[in-house]
């Protein structure tokens, strides 16, 4: 899944994808009335299905990326930097 998200994602990118995924799920939920109602339209059913699947995928993989820390840290005080910086400052 690392490849799916690419290598250059930041934590904020993953968080935003999580928010987008959540919003797509919300939209799919909002469309439920038209999907299960008496006047069912194929376009709305399809859209709701696409939003639900895409939202779910985005949420799951973004959350997984965040939990597994599969993102680049742009923190200037990162662990790797501290050693070299410390050396320079000394």
């Amino acid at each position, binding site marked *: 899944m690392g*490849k*799916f*998200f*690419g*290598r*250059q*994602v*930041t*934590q*904020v*990118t993953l*968080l*935003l*994808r999580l928010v*987008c995924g959540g*919003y*797509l799920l919300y*939209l*799919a939920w*909002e*469309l439920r*009335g*038209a999907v299960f109602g008496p006047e069912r339209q194929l*376009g*709305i059913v399809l*859209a709701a299905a*696409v*939003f639900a699947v*895409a939202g779910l995928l*985005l949420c799951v993989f973004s959350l997984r990326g965040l939990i597994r820390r599969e993102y680049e840290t*742009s*923190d*200037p*005080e*990162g662990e790797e*930097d501290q050693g070299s*910086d410390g050396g320079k400052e000394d």
Partner: protein
Amino acid sequence: MENTTVKTVAQKKVNLSMKQYGMVLALIAVYLIFAVITGGKNLAPMTVNNIIMQNGYVIILAVGMLLCVLTGNVDLGVGSVVATCGAVAGTLIVDFGVSSPLAMLASLAVGALFGAFVGFFVSKLEIPPFIVTLATMLMGRGLCYVILQAQTKGPLPADYIWVSTGFLPTIKLGVAADGTGGVDLICLLVAAVIAVLVVLSDVRSVAVAKKNGLPTVHTWQLAVKDIIIIGIEGFFFYKLGKYNGIPILLILVAIVVGIYHFITTQTVAGRQIYAMGGNAKAARLSGINTQKVFFWVYANMGLLCGLAGIVLSARNASATPKAGDGFEMDAIASCYIGGAATSGGVGTIIGAVVGAFIMGILNIGMSLAGFDTNVQKIVKGAVLLGAVTVDLLSKRKKG
């Protein structure tokens, strides 16, 4: 020999960046599609005027949000801060009889305080902006309810709402005998001045590129670009001229956009923000005070929230506790639609403004077309899905 080399390089031609101008074409496409769907309703002067009136505060917020996005972060609290700033101004005017200018200053001060609060936690305590701004989102909304005591404060006086509803004086040409019709001369003059500036700007950039031996864009491409841009602004000002002239809000928005465009493209501070978004570590090692940049980016966002709060409450002629709901998403979406990257370091003020206009035209177009709420949700979801797909694909290419 040296002269020959310089001449060869100077004559090299490159194509216009479609990434940069693709959004303008998308804006035209969306507008034309809705012109067909609505039977030309969105071409009416009043609708064109409403595009700026209904999206002025989104543009102001998108400008501030772009700076946050450039650093690789976002501000989730803008909607609540906008509501709180409007609430402060509304309460001061209605309950305490404070004059409008003083209430506006108070609103700006509250916005700046909120921004400084976020900036302090982000820069000094190094708490992720996502968390801090989530906190201001909740705090701001709560504070807004407390200030307004869950009530709507209004009506606000005429000199306050003038900011969002006022127009410059007009000099109408071609008015019919019954007093209808005609076009505002000032609008036409402004359109002409902008057209001249657009052409002069391109002539200057080509001259500078040639002088420095840099490749220049094909002349025909520059001409097409200028014709399109001048066409858009000419159409826009002509329609405004057919309505009530230039709105005060448009001047306010133009000043904000102009200032921040200048800051991001011509100043050291702007370069530092881009550098931070590109690579924070490299920026810090090259001497940029990243803490200071973070602080000012968020303090500035707060100040612009104060301005947006004034504009919003002036448009509604009242301060309401639910104002600004979801504005953070509109501002963030405007930046990303306008070509900003989620990883930071990429994006322009003009791009964010174009993004805000695309969203505004979509919203107004769907309302005019009489789309039911389900179809509106599908369109919004499709736009979001498209943006996420573009983001994912661009990351895969880079990866």
